[in-house]
């Protein structure tokens, strides 16, 4: 994006190690009127979250270095970031089960494959809930 950042648009941090998926969601989010920042692993996601304080974070759960579960737990444990809604993305249908032991305070779960427009609808829903 070459345009100067428009701070009136919500900033979405997209965290996914799979480049094609990350860039696809990023492109569609920008197409849908969001500002986008990207991270490729859990550690980078934490750095960017603390630095940018995005309005919402799209977090793939299987990530290198620090996985999505752990990253989300740390974000929710930190005063600066705990109010930021996290939409968890998972391609592992089996991991997305109640009682799988991972009590993570994600605000929403989205199972991949997830079409870009479905994801954007979810993001809008989470943001609307936060504003209220």
């Amino acid at each position, binding site marked *: 994006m070459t345009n100067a950042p428009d701070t009136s648009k919500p900033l979405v941090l997209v965290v996914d190690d*799979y480049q094609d998926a990350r860039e696809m969601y990023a492109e*569609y989010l920008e*197409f849908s009127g969001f500002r986008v920042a990207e991270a490729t692993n859990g550690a980078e996601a934490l750095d960017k979250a603390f630095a940018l304080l995005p309005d919402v974070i799209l977090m793939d759960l299987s990530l290198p270095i620090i996985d999505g579960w752990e990253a989300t737990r740390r974000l929710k444990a930190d005063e600066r970031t705990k109010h930021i809604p996290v939409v968890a993305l998972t391609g592992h249908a*089996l991991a997305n*089960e*109640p*009682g799988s032991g991972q009590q993570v305070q994600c605000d929403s779960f989205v199972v991949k*494959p997830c*079409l*870009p427009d479905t994801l954007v609808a979810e993001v809008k829903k989470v943001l609307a809930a936060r504003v209220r």
Partner: protein
Amino acid sequence: MPSSTAPLKPPTAPGSEARAESSPAAADQERGLLRQLVDAVTDPILFTNLEGRVLIANARARQLFVADEGASEGHRRAVELNQRVFHTALLSSATGGASPVRRRDLSLVDPVEGTDLLFELVCTPAKEPGNPPGHVCVLRNVTALGRATQALGESYRRLRASEQEARSERLRLDLILDSVADPIIVTDPSGGTVLMNDPAERLFYAPPDSGEAPRRRAHTNNANFASFLSHLLAPSGARRWRGELHLVEPATGAPLPMEAMASQVLSDQGEPTSIVTLLHDRTEALEKARLLEQVRSASSELEAKVHAATAELAEQNEKLRRQALQLEQASAAKSQFLANMSHEFRTPLNAILGYTSMLLQGVNGEMTPQQRRNLQRIDSNGRHLLQVINEILDITRIEAGRMPLNLSSFLLQDLLQEVMAEMDPIIARTKLTVTSHVAPEVPELHGDRQKVKQIVLNLLSNALKFTHEGSVQLSAAYDFGTSTVSISVKDTGIGIAPEHHEKVFEDFQQVDSSPTRVYGGTGLGLSICRRLAAMMGGRVTVQSAIDQGSTFTLHVPWRMRRS
């Protein structure tokens, strides 16, 4: 008795007068002494002449044979009777035999007492020169002796009677002993046989005409018995002895194992008087014991076999258990593999479907109609692939037990409305009349809402797919008898031949499974429906015929319970 030595009045001995001639004073004195002597003898003594006339009588004789003047009538008669009896006896004894001394019994009466007296008359002829011949008669009182003899005869009779009784008693005892089947032997303290009953006799005595072998066998039996008895015969021997005797049947030589029980019979003084031995044939008992042993050994053999079989079974079970475990592990590994694989499928598919969708939305600008049509084909094939992957994943999850039941209470009316709403875009593209009806008696359902919905969605989507015209009816009913709710989807579609009713529930199966089949779908839908229904304790049934439409029905318990 009157005063003794009263002289006999009438007779006077001429002999005594003749004696007195030599010295009259000395003769008188001697005669007086003699009379005193004769009177002192308590037995009557008389001297008679040859005719039986009494010449001299001593005091006791006078009592019996002389009556005084003042004697009573009875006394007088008794004396007369005595005199007659004596006279008769004297005469008859004088005329008999050659022996000079005569003995004879004489029954007299005591004139004073009136009692019977028994005497023995002993007559001795007297032939002394110078004296007249006569008889010296001595009467010996044998009354007591007679009584004793009588008593003796009586006791002899009694003895005979009791002997008779003892004999019949013995006979009875013999009969009893012989009637006992077990041999009984009575021996004296030194071992000599006193008595044995018939069964014992058959063992120990062979008849003389029975031949050499039986006699030898009987002899052997006797020897065995004697050696058995020796336990009791020893001075310090036991009072009782029990043991085994190996006898043989004398006639046949068949072995006769006997149990012998011998006991001493003691007198009142504790002296051994006899030994009674009872034998009991143990052949039958031994046979029984042998049979019992056979049964027992057969039983233990059987038990051993059962043990072996059980052990083998346990081993088999263990093998099966291990195999089951391996299978389970293999199955879990397969499920994990499929889950991983579906993840690996979905990651690229996510990008394919995402970019296709973005292109179709014109994110990168408008496309020519041909480009759009081709992209739509990519899109629909991608979606089909995704559906297949999702359904495989569903089956994998069900089979891996990783699709738990989430129970809640819900109304079927709401659920059917939701299903209709979700399918509305598809329904709208058909010309079908789709209705939904829930019978008023259908209660609020307690179960896994998501799974019920998934099944109904699947059944409805099938109905829409295979029905070209007419209607599709959703209806729910309740069966009070089985407490089961049934949700039916009835269509007027192409129908299914009865022989294919089962096939449609199998994995990857449609009635037409050819690669060029007309109808889309993965062929997994009904197989998933059936699995989900089973998880909830229910089932899916079908009623259909070619060109008659189909009715698929889900039956689930009104209240589901976690199994």
